[in-house]
């Protein structure tokens, strides 16, 4: 009896260790979006209708273009790394059309009706219990102050950091570099768990409008130098 319990426990341990190591990822990961098949390793997750994501431009100047028409879907890349060891993420984005929002979020209509952003980059922290899943979202908002941190109207575990605001840089490529570890601590007040995925999204399902943004040169999971 004791022997069989031991064999079962040992097998379970080997399985856990095996699955852990086989799911290890090469870091840092770079997504230049410069080839037509660049989106093959990304999964599209549709929330409400499809946003059109296409690779545009030539090899050196390739980028990911997102066009949303009353839609909400995101591109997800599953990757596991600990932000304490590899805290950095960087990318370039360019907003060419913002979703049409009327008034600020606190006015009539509420937050959910205005929870659309021309461009956002997700860092997703999954959990064993799905209600504890957390998400940090870097957004380019037209109407919110740069540097502000807001809680999603959908769920308290989703924090949005406005890192680019307004139309002053509209139509230009803007480079961003963020320290996920520090940003998570600022938003949630604790050290981050393992990152489970990153995602890109341009959405206009709540405002029932249109938006257009581009992304390129996404680099994730590198050390702060």
């Amino acid at each position, binding site marked *: 009896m004791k022997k069989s319990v031991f064999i079962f426990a040992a097998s379970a341990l080997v399985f856990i260790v095996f699955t852990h190591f086989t799911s290890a990822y090469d870091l840092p990961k770079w997504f230049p979006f410069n080839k037509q098949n660049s989106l093959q390793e990304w999964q599209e*997750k549709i929330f409400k209708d499809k946003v059109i994501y296409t690779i545009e431009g030539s090899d050196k100047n390739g980028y990911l273009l997102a066009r949303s028409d009353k839609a909400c879907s995101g591109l*997800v890349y599953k990757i596991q790394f600990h932000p304490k060891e590899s805290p950095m993420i960087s990318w370039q984005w360019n907003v060419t059309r913002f979703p049409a929002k009327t008034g600020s979020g606190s006015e009539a209509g509420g937050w959910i009706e205005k929870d659309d952003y021309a461009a956002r980059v997700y860092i*997703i922290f999954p959990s064993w*219990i*799905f209600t504890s*899943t957390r998400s940090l979202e870097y957004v380019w908002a037209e109407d919110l102050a740069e540097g502000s941190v807001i809680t999603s109207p*959908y*769920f308290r*575990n989703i924090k949005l950091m406005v890192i680019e605001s307004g139309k002053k840089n509209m139509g230009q490529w803007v480079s961003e570099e963020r320290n996920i570890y520090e940003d998570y601590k600022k938003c949630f007040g604790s050290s981050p768990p393992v990152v489970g995925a990153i*995602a890109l999204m341009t959405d206009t399902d709540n405002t029932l409008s249109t938006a257009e943004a581009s992304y390129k040169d996404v680099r994730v999971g590198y050390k702060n130098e």
Partner: protein
Amino acid sequence: MSEWGIKMNKNNKRKRAFANKIHREIFWLVFLAALLPASIVMVLLYYLIFNITAEQMVIPEAIAYNLLPAAKRVIVILLFAAPLCIAAILIFAYNISHRIIGPFDRIVKELGECVEGKKKNHILVRKNDKFKPLVDKINKLLDRLI
């Protein structure tokens, strides 16, 4: 008071819920044997269904918008259904344990009377008693001895 420490009233009915220690043990055995696997399966199903769905959805807003309300509804339903199921299992366990210990107790009591010489006829059991084959053999033995 019977030989096995069972308190009886005038109508030969037990006063206590459990006749004796064996009755209580059988009751708990049946109760836990039904409740534990059911609880484990329920928790695992809840966890697996919602967690795997959340894992597939990935986008936290989608999880919050679609999955959380469903999970909350399931919890509310379970809060109402679980006490009813537990009560049903309790009744089931009590009946099962009672059906086992009732005839057993009667056999012991009547055998005691036979040993003391107060009783010279067969031990009586109901048609559906679980111990009927045993009682039949005892009655044959009594026929040979008396």
